[in-house]
């Protein structure tokens, strides 16, 4: 792996671990998967227009997050059903518009050369997500308690929800190169779920999730190169392995 790709992988993994902590605590674990599926038609459209797939994926993820947010303004039960339907449909449409080698890469990640625009977009995106979590940490924590409490604390709940969903969608876009549409959700959720079982406080959970995500990404990518296999599945297997080990150590 080149130094550029390594830097991008580490930045992406840190963003995943951090956003994952709040996603898990907000019980969004199951939303990560369907939301990541919406990237697939974006990849197809981008390839048809001969632009870099990441930009097509990022654009559709942006609208996907907007849609989830708009649905969430209504009742929650309906939201989950709608997410399930809309995003499965996106996967179906995406599978038709993308084909062959491109489809496999979009689904499971690619080891192709890293373009300059992708590197800059990736690093800037990861930085944006990390800065968002670090600066909005207090508001995100207060919002976990209840939206009413958050309002009395002066938080614009609706705007923060939207920003969180967009940060979440951006993180998925960042990971597509390494893990693809089908596996990226796992890198957000598994390290955070592991840290949730092991940590004793918030700071511990954030550091641990970021650390596990970085470890899984580096080990998985390296093992992929060594075994001449795509890195994505090995990243997820490493993260899942850490999770299984953590079950033996978890306090409760």
């Amino acid at each position: 792996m080149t130094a550029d790709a390594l830097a991008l992988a580490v930045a992406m993994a840190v963003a995943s671990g951090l956003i994952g902590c709040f996603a898990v605590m907000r019980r969004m674990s199951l939303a990560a998967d369907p939301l990541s599926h919406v990237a697939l038609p974006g990849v197809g459209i981008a390839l048809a227009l001969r632009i870099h797939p990441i930009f097509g994926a990022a654009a559709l993820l942006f609208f996907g997050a907007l849609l989830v947010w708009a649905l969430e303004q209504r009742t929650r039960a309906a939201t989950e059903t709608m997410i399930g339907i809309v995003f499965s449909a996106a996967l179906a449409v995406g599978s038709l518009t993308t084909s062959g080698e491109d489809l496999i890469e979009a689904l499971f990640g690619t080891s192709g050369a890293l373009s300059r625009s992708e590197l800059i977009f990736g690093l800037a995106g990861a930085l944006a997500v990390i800065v968002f979590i670090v600066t909005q940490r207090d508001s995100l924590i207060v919002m976990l308690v209840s939206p009413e409490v958050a309002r009395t604390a002066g938080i614009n709940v609706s705007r923060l929800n939207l920003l969180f969903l967009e940060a979440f969608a951006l993180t998925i876009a960042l990971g597509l190169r390494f893990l693809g549409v089908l596996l990226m959700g796992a890198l957000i959720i598994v390290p955070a779920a592991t840290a949730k079982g092991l940590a004793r406080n918030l700071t511990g959970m954030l550091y641990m999730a970021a650390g596990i995500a970085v470890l899984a990404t580096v080990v998985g990518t390296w093992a992929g190169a060594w075994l001449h296999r795509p890195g994505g599945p090995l990243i997820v297997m490493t993260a899942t392995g850490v999770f299984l080990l953590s079950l033996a150590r978890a306090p409760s």
Partner: protein
Amino acid sequence: MDTILEVRHLSVRFGRRYVLRDLSFDVERGTSLAILGPNGAGKTMLFRSLVGATPFDGTVRWAAGTRIGYVPQKLDLERDIPITGLDFLTARTALARGTRTDLSRVLALVGIPPDVANQPISVLSGGQFQRLLLAFALVGDPNALLLDEPTAGVDEPGQEQLNELVSILQRDHALTVLFISHELTVVSRYATNVLCLSRGAACFGPPRTVLTPDLLRDMYRTDVHYVHDHADDR
């Protein structure tokens, strides 16, 4: 007297169904208002409209300089997360631009020892957790408290302690307290006025005049046995 909250013609509806309809009442500064009503009568929805967390028709006017502390009833929160009471309070205090001293002060006010505050919320008892929520509401030095069934899920001795705690806080800090409760004895002991919400019309007034057997039967659609002087027997 000095009015801290003025509500006029408040209505909340979901589609065509009214949850609250044409509600008007005042709350005087430093008093306690109990909100009573069967499940689904819109008690929590009333609180949500009072803090602007849900759209409504009519007017809700808080006096200038009112700072609201809110204790929610049901948390969206998963309890098995590694967040400590201190994590929550630190975040809330930071948003209120408070200091560590402010944080220690609210912990002391609700009687949570520092070592308990340092534990993940998953290991706290029901009573400790409610105290934590109360501490959370007290950050930012509120002058009005909205308590949505603050003793739900707490054992009976714990409930009494919490009720007493709120009453002491109210006295010492000149707080206006609005609380939702199903406990008629608690309502009659602590409330200055009662607002009852039911499917029919709302009623408003001091507990002694409002809490009549007829009204309670009407509100809960069953016979509720309740003795006015219960509190004085203790």
